[in-house]
């Protein structure tokens, strides 16, 4: 097993080598014939992207994607307390005042599943042993290991430990080891460090990607649930959007506070 430094070097090299190919694909999407050729050559579906969310939805509750009834998810008492304390930007509890969204307040990483709600693109780099998911939002990325199992006692981290496999045309990603500091969505639904995610990525057609996510978190939810998002292939190259606390603070002072003072008479 390569050490940490060696692994980082390998990752940087892979990203560097593949970025040119990635850019080429953004400017010249593959034809159906090419897509067929890719499939038959390696029997590995091409998920490269970049992908941009269609419409989006602030909640992962499959029966309430707009978050109009965010308390209807089967939360445990532990999760209900967390949810009550949340002051999110979207859904029925949306507010501009005293927001405690960890992304908005601290520029914390938003977490894997919340990234799927953002308007910023993501892309995949597929190699034989690992798939890299690259996110425009703050330049986050994560490896999906195709050649190993989860560690027996994984660290708790922002992005967790992800392993994957191809099941026909579907990339199945299994993630554990999440630190529980993020919300699963834009309406403030919490999760614990026991969260187990299953993402299933499937190309519906040449330019459409469907991502379904199953949330299994017995500490936070009494039942597992599954939500879906749709993404379209984008012709725009990948960029990076930074989250800067100084810029966030400046924006809060200039706009948010102005827009939350008591209404003028």
């Amino acid at each position, binding site marked *: 097993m390569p050490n940490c430094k060696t692994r980082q070097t390998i990752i940087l090299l892979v990203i560097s080598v593949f970025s040119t190919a990635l850019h080429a694909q953004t400017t010249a999407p593959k034809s159906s014939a090419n897509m067929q050729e890719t499939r038959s050559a390696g029997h590995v579906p091409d998920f490269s992207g970049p992908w941009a969310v269609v419409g989006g*939805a602030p909640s992962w509750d499959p029966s309430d994607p707009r978050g109009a009834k965010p308390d209807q998810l089967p939360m445990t008492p532990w999760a209900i307390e967390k949810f009550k304390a949340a002051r999110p930007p979207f859904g029925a509890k949306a507010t501009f005042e005293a927001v405690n969204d960890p992304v908005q307040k601290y520029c914390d990483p938003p977490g894997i599943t919340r990234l799927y709600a953002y308007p910023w693109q993501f892309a995949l780099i597929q190699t034989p042993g690992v798939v890299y998911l690259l996110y425009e939002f703050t330049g986050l990325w994560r490896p999906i290991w195709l050649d190993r199992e989860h560690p027996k006692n994984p660290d708790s981290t922002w992005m967790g430990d992800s392993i994957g496999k191809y099941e026909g045309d579907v990339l199945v990603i299994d993630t554990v080891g999440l630190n529980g500091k993020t919300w699963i969505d834009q309406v403030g639904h919490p999760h614990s460090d026991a969260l187990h995610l299953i993402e299933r990525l499937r190309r519906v057609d040449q330019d459409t990607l469907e991502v379904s996510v199953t949330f299994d978190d017995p500490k936070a939810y009494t039942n597992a649930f599954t939500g879906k998002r749709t993404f379209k292939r984008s012709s725009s190259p990948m960029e990076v959007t930074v989250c800067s606390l100084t810029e966030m603070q400046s924006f809060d002072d200039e706009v948010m506070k102005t827009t939350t003072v008591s209404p003028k008479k």
Partner: protein
Amino acid sequence: MKSKLSIAICVAAGLLLVSASTSAHHGTSGYDMEKVITLNGTITSFNWSNPHCLVHIDVKDSKGDVKDWIIELAAPTLMSRNGWTKDSLKPGDDVIAETHPAKNGATTGLSGASTALLKFVVNGHALPSH
């Protein structure tokens, strides 16, 4: 102050041009998303930065007093994909701008997000909108 700064607020009710799902990072709860007003004034600054591009516009109110309006747009990456650049607006430009006004009566508004971008006409030329 130029006479062009005069007035100008007309209301188009019932327009839900900005999706609540993928718009501003902070949501839209501070703005009246069912109302669109049109501002007619002069650009005093254009800040092309995260988390949202900001436009300051001097606008005369009904009493003839000049007010500083702060108009919020999407993040630079998303505005670029809408066809805007950091040079799309400059201080001194005459502008007609649509915006969703703040609910509390403050002179702030939301005009751009990932899914929608309201109309901006600068020196007689329309910028990309959708």
